[in-house]
C-alpha cells in the first residue's frame, strides 16, 4: 500500500538499486582481481558453480541462507520502527548460548518437547538482549546504535566465559565447558533430542530449520503489513510525532520492536547451533550478525527482499571454496564483494549518479533509522 503504481512497477523499482549495487560490486571485484593478475571470469564461474552447480552446492547455499535470513530480518524489522539494530551479532550469540544450554541439559526429554524448548530458549536469549537497548532508549534516551554495539561486546565476552576451558593455574572453567574437550574451549554436543532433524542428511546436511525460517519470514511479513502491531511499528518508524498524535504507545512499540528484532537474531543463533554446529565454540560466532545489516539494506528492509539478499549471501559463502579451488583467487575476495555491496546499497546516491537514475517518490526515503536522538 505504498503507492498506486502497479505491483510489477513497484517490484522493479524496489529491485533496481539492489541489483545495480550487486552488478557494481561484482564489476569492482573483477577489477581488483585483474589488478592482482587473477582471472575474474574463472573466479565468478567457480563461484556460481560452487553455489548452484551441484546438489551439494545448492545444499550449502540453502544451509548458509537460514541464519542470514533471520539476522537480516532482525535488522530489517528494527528499521521499520526507525531503529538501527547493530546488535544482531550479540543477540545471535545470546540465542546460541541459551539454546546450547537447553540442548545439552534435560537428558531424556522427547524430541517434540526438547527441540522446541531449545529453539524457544534461543528466541528468548535474543529477545532479552534486544529488550535491553529498547528499554534503555525509552527510559534514558540512550541511542540503540551505541548500546547494541556495547552489548555485542558483552555478549561475546559472556559467551567466551561460558565455555572457558580453565587455565593451567587451575582457574574455574566456564559452566558450559565440555570437560572431555581438554584444553579446547567448547560446549559438549547438544543431545540428539534437541537437534534439528535433517531434510537431506550428510553429505547435504540440509536441516528442517530452513523451513522454520521461511515460516518465520511469512509470519513477520504478516505481522508488519497485516496487523495493527505492524501498523504501529511502521508508523513509529515513519513519523514519531504522528504516532503520538494517533495515540500509539511509542515507547512500548520501540521496546517491542527491539524484543522482536533480538528474538529473530537469537533464533538464528539457536537454529544454527541446533541444526549445523550442534555445539558452541567461540570461533563459530562469525560475522552473520553484522551481515544482517547488509542483507536488510540489500533486501530493502522487506521480509521477502531479505530472503533474496540472504540467498545471495548464502551463495557467496557457499561458492567461495570452489572459486578458490578453480581460479586460485583467495576466498577473502568474497568479503570484499560483500563490503562493496553494502557500500553501494547504503549509498544509493552513488548508484543513481553512475546510472543517471531519477528519484521516484518511493525511493526518496529508504526506511532507515530516523534520528540520532532518543524519542522526545
Amino acid at each position, binding site marked *: 500500500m*505504498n503507492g498506486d503504481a502497479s505491483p510489477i512497477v513497484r517490484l522493479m523499482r524496489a529491485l533496481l538499486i539492489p541489483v545495480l549495487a550487486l552488478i557494481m560490486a561484482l564489476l569492482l571485484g573483477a577489477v581488483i582481481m585483474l589488478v592482482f593478475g587473477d582471472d575474474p571470469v574463472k573466479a565468478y564461474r567457480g563461484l556460481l558453480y560452487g553455489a548452484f552447480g551441484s546438489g551439494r552446492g545448492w545444499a550449502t547455499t540453502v544451509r548458509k541462507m537460514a541464519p542470514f535470513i533471520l539476522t537480516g530480518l532482525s535488522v530489517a524489522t528494527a528499521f521499520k520502527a526507525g531503529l538501527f539494530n547493530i546488535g544482531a551479532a550479540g543477540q545471535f550469540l545470546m540465542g546460541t548460548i541459551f539454546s546450547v544450554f537447553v540442548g545439552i541439559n534435560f537428558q531424556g526429554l522427547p524430541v517434540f518437547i526438547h527441540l522446541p524448548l531449545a529453539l524457544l530458549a534461543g528466541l528468548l536469549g535474543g529477545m532479552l538482549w534486544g529488550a535491553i537497548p529498547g528499554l534503555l532508549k525509552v527510559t534514558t534516551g540512550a541511542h540503540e546504535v551505541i548500546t547494541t554495539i556495547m552489548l555485542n561486546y558483552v555478549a561475546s565476552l559472556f559467551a567466551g566465559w561460558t565455555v572457558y576451558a580453565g587455565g593451567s593455574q587451575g582457574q574455574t572453567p566456564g559452566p558450559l565447558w565440555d570437560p572431555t574437550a581438554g584444553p579446547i574451549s567448547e560446549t559438549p554436543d547438544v543431545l540428539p533430542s534437541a537437534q534439528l532433524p535433517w531434510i537431506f542428511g550428510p553429505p547435504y546436511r540440509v536441516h528442517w530449520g530452513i523451513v522454520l525460517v521461511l515460516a518465520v519470514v511469512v509470519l513477520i511479513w504478516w505481522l508488519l503489513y497485516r496487523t495493527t502491531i505492524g501498523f504501529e511499528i511502521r508508523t513509529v518508524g515513519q513519523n514519531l510525532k504522528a504516532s503520538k498524535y494517533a495515540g500509539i504507545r511509542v515507547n512500548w512499540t520501540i521496546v517491542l520492536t527491539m524484543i522482536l528484532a533480538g528474538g529473530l537474531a537469537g533464533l538464528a543463533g539457536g537454529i544454527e547451533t541446533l541444526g549445523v554446529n550442534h555445539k558452541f565454540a567461540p570461533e563459530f560466532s562469525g560475522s552473520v550478525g553484522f551481515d544482517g545489516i547488509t542483507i536488510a539494506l540489500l533486501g530493502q528492509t522487506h521480509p521477502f527482499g531479505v530472503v533474496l539478499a540472504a540467498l545471495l549471501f548464502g551463495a557467496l559463502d557457499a561458492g567461495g571454496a570452489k572459486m578458490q579451488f578453480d581460479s586460485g583467487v583467495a576466498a577473502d575476495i568474497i568479503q570484499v564483494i560483500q563490503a562493496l555491496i553494502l557500500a553501494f546499497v547504503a549509498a544509493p546516491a552513488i548508484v543513481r549518479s553512475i546510472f543517471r537514475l531519477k528519484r521516484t517518490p518511493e525511493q526518496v526515503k529508504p526506511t532507515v533509522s530516523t534520528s540520532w536522538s532518543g524519542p522526545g
Partner: protein
Amino acid sequence: MADQPIPALEVRNITKRFPGVIANQDVNLKLYPGEILGLLGENGAGKTTLMNIIYGLYHPTEGEILVRGQPVVMHSPKDAIALGIGMVHQHFQLVPVMTVAENVMLGSEAVRNGFLDVGAVAQRIHELSSRYNLDVDPYALVEDLPVGVRQRVEIVKTLYRQAEILILDEPTAVLTPQEIQGLFQIMNLLKEQGKSIIFITHKLKEVLQVADRIAVLRQGKVVGEADPRTATQASLAAMMVGREVILTVDKKPAQPGPVILEIQGLTARNDLGEPALREVSLTVRAGEILGVAGVQGNGQTELVEVLTGLRPALGGRITVQGKDMTNASPRQVTEEGPSCHVPEDRHAYGMVGSYSVAHNLVLNTYYRPPFAQGITVNEPAIVEHASRLVKEYDVRTPSVLTPASSLSGGNQQKMVVAREFSRPVKLLIAAQPTRGIDVGSIEFIHNQIVAKRDEDVAVLLVSYELDEIMALSDRIAVMYKGQIIDVLPREEATREKLGLLMAGVHPDEAASSA
C-alpha cells in the same frame, strides 16, 4: 523630498509567487543611509520572504532591487554580502562549539602563511566591539554565551563583512526586556555611524520606540507607511490586521448548550522548559466556536498539545463533559472525549507522508472495528472507508492508495479534516486548520467547522489569522504570553481591539500612550 539622499537600498515593484501563493505583491520600499526602518506585519504577511529576496536567498518573480542607486541581481547571500547587506536571522547561524572569532571568520577566513589568522580577526572584533559598544569577547565559546550576546555576535559577523545595510529579522523575539533595550542602544549607535537597518517585528511598542519610519506589510503588500512620532499602537494595529473582511462565512447565530470543555488554571512548559501556559482558564460550550487569537508563540501550540494529550499539564484541570481529562493520553482524549483534533502542523503530526491516503484516513482509528479484527488489519474496509470519505470531503487524489505526500497541501488538509470530522465527537480542537492552503479548500474547511458547531459540537479554534478567527468564532479569547488576557463576544471584538490585545496592550492603555 527633492533633497533626499540616494537610498542605501530600494526595492521596486517586487512580486514573489510560490506555487499557489503570492508571498509578496508589488512591494516598494526605500531605506536611507543612517535610518532604522521598522517593517511591521503579522505572521505570514510576507516579511521574511521579502527579506530573503533582499538577502539573495530567493529570486523575485518580478521587480528589481537597487543598492545605492544601482540595480543589482543577486544569486545567493554571497552576492548580498559583497554588496554590503548583512542579515541577522531569527534563528542564529552560529556553531556552538566554536569561539566567537572562529564563528565570525567562518566563510571568510583570514589566512596568513597558509594558517588561520585568528589573532587578526580577534583584533578586528575588538575594534568593532568597542566602536559599537557590543561587548563581545572574541575568544569566548558561543555555547557558553547567553542568547543576547549570541545575537551581538551575529551583528559583529555582519559588521566584520563590512555590511552597510543590516536586516534584523524579529531580533527581539528571543530577548528579555533588558536585552531588548540594550539592542536598541546598539541599533541607535549603528545608525549614528551611518549604517542603515531594517528592523522586522510584529511588536507595536518596539517599532514605535526605535524606528525612524515604519512600513506595514499585510498579505504580501505594503499597506502603508507611518511616522512613529504621530502613529499610535492603535493606528498601527489597525493597519497591520486590516479593515476589510477578506473571508466571510455564512453562519446562523450560535445556540450554545452545556459546557463541554472546561479548562481551569492550566499551566505547562514549552520544549525549552520555559513556562508556556500561565493559569489558562477557558470554557467551550456545545454548539459554539471559541476562537483563540494571538500572535504565534504565545502559548497556543502548547495549549492545544496539552488538551490533546501530547504535552503534560503541570497544573490545573481539564474536564470534558465533566470527566477529568487532565494529562489523559492522546487515545483517551480521542476515545473518551470523544474529541477530534486537527493539528497545527499537519506534516509533523497530522499525517504520515509515505502512507496512502487510505491509511492516513485511519491513522488514529486503525485498531477499531471494522478496520481491524483482533490484531488483523482489514484492508478492504479501510479502502472502502477511504473511498467514501474522499468523495464526501472532496479530497482530490488519483486514488486512495496514493501516498499522502504527493497530494497538494489543501487536499492533505482536507484528508486530515475528513479523518477527524467523520467521527462522532463532542469536542473539536482545530489548530491553524487552513494554514498554507488554497482559498477553495479554506472555504470548504470553514464550512465544515461551522457545520460541526451546528451539530452541537464544542469547537476550540486556534488560529494566527485574525480574519479566520473573526469569520468563524462566536466568542474570541486572546492569548498573550501564555495567558488569556481577555475573552470577548464576537460582536464586541473589533480588529483594532483584538490587534491591541494580541500585542499585549489593553485598549485603554493604548489610548493613553499615544
